[in-house]
């Protein structure tokens, strides 16, 4: 055996040593695996500490180790730590193998003997595997300094501004005619009660005017190709039917347009817009769009009122959808959320009773720019409610709908309670399961509501109906609820009900995730690289997430995450080039028979066929290293670096070494 292997077993405090007999493992490895080339086996309290790393480095220098195996935590945690330690003293980092003794052994097993035997087996697998490791050099690819931000809500706006202010170019793609997202629909923001538009619109204007931002509204990403550093993104710019270079945004067109359409998006069905419209007066960009589905001209070929009255001749009915390809190095996804559809809970009467509002509908109702000019009145358009019930956790924390807490609804409901109380003097009832106000100034806001004598009833609302049992209930909406603090059923008649609907992932979140090659949780929120230490990056290099697309969160958290994603992207851009894992497949031309089986199997079209030589070749920049072609090649001509046949087969042999030594262990089962 020509290799000199060093094996290091980490105690990880008691995390590993508490279950696995680490001394026994290191003794066994030193003795039994000496024939494999193990020249030194040690155990140490914390291998990842600088002292632990120095231990390895010293052995590499003094004993001339050519391979290193560390039995510690998951390679997803500390693989790079130990690889770097090897690199520092001149050993190629890919000659170091990390064996997961913690996540896959000590933490998941309680039988000490069985866990110790398993530790021996998996270390033995690692030793057998590392023999076949090759010296690899990371692939260097240049980073395109441009960035794509998908979604123009507050998280996307913040991210775009941060990057653009740093001097790099940003493409901001937004599906709707204007940026602003949900925040533009809100009236006030909790807990400070700042006017939402007052703090948002200056940022929107900044985005609109920024020389480093290319704003693509009324546009959608339809295809993503490439990899970190050089993505080719295809964006479909939907036909606006407006020449944006001549339009001044004067608004005459939508004044003159005779066609009224219910605005289901921005006004959530509470008000009308025209067929040519901007969603709201402060929209950025200021240019309107023509809604071709509802435009009279597109329906029956007549009208063109907007074209007649436009003072600059900016209407163009012949525009077509246009696909543009954007080249970027990094992507931030900030696609936001959908509101839970309260109609899914029929007993709450949403859509059946006029005066049952969802949270977003109430935002529009209380908004000074909304359909009632900010007057909180009933559907009849004049009556001021005398009593209002606010139902928390609608569709959240409910096994029938979404099990998670939507995190913003408590504070949102308290805000609603305050606004109703302030503007109408009505009696307000909050129906809650638990009040959750974990944020700066949030609990204080709750206390303020208590002082305002808002009624809090702890209980999940069973039903909202208009069936009166007693004269006092006539003409009211009756909220049936079990008040769990007094253990009694109550019927509370109110004039208006606000359902504080939860947040859920976008209905197309899964398709979007697939397009960008990132993964979704069971509820279709995008999965971050690490739930605590990296809630911004994804498993896919070069793609970051921000805002509610990652999970329900409030405005400050969305802004913070948007800015954090921007910082990460700027860090990447500054590096100018990035090292990619050299885990790639390569074809041995001599062995390749030119059967082309691998050509079709590659999902990234990374395999080229040379007609002249009758052989295939892999483009390492396109290859992602999945290894499917390696397994498929009938001639065995393809080798997968880092996961070669020799490595895996040898690892299997190593894992089964104990079995072949007939060293059966005595685990007695659970």
């Amino acid at each position, binding site marked *: 055996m020509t290799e000199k292997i060093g094996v290091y077993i980490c105690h990880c405090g008691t995390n590993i040593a508490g279950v696995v007999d680490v001394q026994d493992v290191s003794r066994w490895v030193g003795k039994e695996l000496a024939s494999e080339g193990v020249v030194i086996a040690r155990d140490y309290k914390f291998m990842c500490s600088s002292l632990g790393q120095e231990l390895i480095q010293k052995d590499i220098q003094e004993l001339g180790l050519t391979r290193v195996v560390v039995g510690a935590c*998951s*390679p*997803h945690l500390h693989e790079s730590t130990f690889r770097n330690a090897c690199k520092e003293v001149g050993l190629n980092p890919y000659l170091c193998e990390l064996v*997961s003794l*913690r*996540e*896959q*052994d000590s*933490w*998941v*097993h*309680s*039988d000490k003997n*069985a*866990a110790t*035997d*398993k530790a021996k*087996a*998996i270390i033995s*697998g690692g030793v057998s595997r590392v023999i076949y490791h090759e010296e690899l050099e990371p692939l260097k690819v240049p980073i395109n300094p441009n960035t794509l931000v998908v979604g123009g809500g507050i998280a996307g706006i913040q991210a775009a501004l941060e990057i653009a202010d740093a001097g790099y170019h940003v493409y901001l793609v937004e599906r709707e005619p204007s940026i602003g997202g949900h925040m533009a629909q809100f009236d006030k923001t909790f807990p400070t009660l700042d006017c939402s538009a007052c703090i948002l619109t200056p940022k929107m204007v900044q985005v609109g005017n920024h020389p480093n931002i290319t704003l693509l509204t009324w546009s959608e990403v339809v295809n993503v190709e490439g990899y970190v550093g050089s993505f080719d993104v295809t964006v479909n710019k939907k036909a606006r039917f407006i020449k944006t270079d001549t339009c001044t945004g004067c608004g005459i067109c939508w004044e003159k347009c005779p066609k009224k359409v219910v605005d289901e998006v921005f006004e959530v069905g509470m008000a009308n817009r025209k067929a040519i419209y901007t969603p709201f007066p402060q929209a950025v960009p200021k240019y309107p769009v023509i809604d071709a589905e509802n435009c009279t001209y597109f329906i029956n070929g007549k009208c063109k009122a907007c074209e007649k009255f436009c003072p600059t001749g900016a209407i163009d009915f012949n525009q077509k959808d246009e696909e543009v390809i954007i080249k970027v190095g990094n992507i931030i996804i900030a696609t936001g959320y959908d509101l839970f559809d309260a109609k899914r809970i029929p007993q709450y009467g949403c859509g059946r009773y006029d005066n049952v509002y969802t949270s977003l509908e109430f935002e529009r109702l209380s908004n000074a720019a909304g359909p009632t000019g900010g007057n909180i009145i009933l559907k009849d358009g004049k009556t001021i409610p005398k009593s209002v019930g606010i139902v928390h956790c609608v569709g959240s924390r409910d096994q029938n709908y979404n099990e998670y807490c939507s995190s913003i609804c408590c504070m949102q409901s308290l805000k609603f309670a305050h606004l109703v109380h302030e503007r109408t003097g009505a009696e307000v009832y909050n129906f809650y399961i638990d009040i959750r106000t974990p944020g700066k100034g949030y609990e204080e806001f709750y206390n303020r509501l208590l002082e305002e004598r808002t009624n809090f009833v702890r209980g999940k609302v069973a039903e909202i109906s208009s069936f009166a049992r007693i004269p006092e209930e006539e003409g009211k909406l009756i909220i049936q609820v079990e008040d769990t603090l007094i253990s009694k059923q109550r019927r509370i008649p109110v004039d208006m009900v606000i359902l504080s609907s939860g947040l859920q992932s976008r209905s197309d979140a899964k398709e979007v995730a*697939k397009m960008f*090659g990132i*993964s*979704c*949780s*069971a509820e279709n929120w995008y*999965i971050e690289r690490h739930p605590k230490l990296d809630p911004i990056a994804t*498993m*896919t290099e070069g793609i970051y997430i921000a805002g509610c697309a990652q999970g329900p969160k409030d405005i400050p958290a969305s802004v913070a995450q948007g800015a954090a994603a921007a910082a990460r992207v700027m860090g990447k851009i500054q590096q100018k080039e990035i090292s990619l894992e050299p*885990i790639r497949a390569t074809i041995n031309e001599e062995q390749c028979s030119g059967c082309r089986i691998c050509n079709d*199997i590659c*999902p*990234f079209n990374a395999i080229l066929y040379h007609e002249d030589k009758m052989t295939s070749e892999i483009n390492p920049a396109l290859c*992602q*290293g*999945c*290894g*499917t072609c*390696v*397994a*498929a090649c009938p001639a065995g001509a393809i080798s*997968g670096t*880092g*996961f070669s*046949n020799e490595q*895996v*087969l040898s*690892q*299997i*042999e190593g*894992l*089964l070494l104990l*079995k*072949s030594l007939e060293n*059966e*262990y*005595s*685990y007695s*089962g*659970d």
Partner: protein
Amino acid sequence: MTNDNFEPVIIGFTCNWCSYRAADMAGTARMKYAPNIRLIRLMCSGRLDPTFIFKALAGGADGILISGCHPGDCHYIEQNYKALRRFQLTKRVLIQMGMEPERLKLFWASAAEGAFLTSEINKFVKVIRELGPLNWNENNFRVQIPIHSIEEEVLA
């Protein structure tokens, strides 16, 4: 051969992006499963060469577990479907060689499904324990003609 003290050895092939991370998650959450399983990390379940399975069984493994991303969620777009095909094919061959089909198992587990992975591993170890050791190394072992057809796989 008695099954009383039989401790099966199972080799599991996991995908770097989902099932290996599910195992990490099971560890972080201190979920417990039987220590009979040894996992091998591949970049993708599509990397699984049937040779690996034969090598492991010939080397003394009593069961083989394969786990990748859920259909449609593959990190490499669709390579888990290739794993599925190879799984079916290998299973057919192994049955022809006289192995009980239950010894080869495939399930999908996302990075979030540590609990699912744990329960599937435990179930599998139980099945293999009841089947007893794979007697491939015994002298009287002969390739047999299959007497039953392969069951349809129910996939999550």
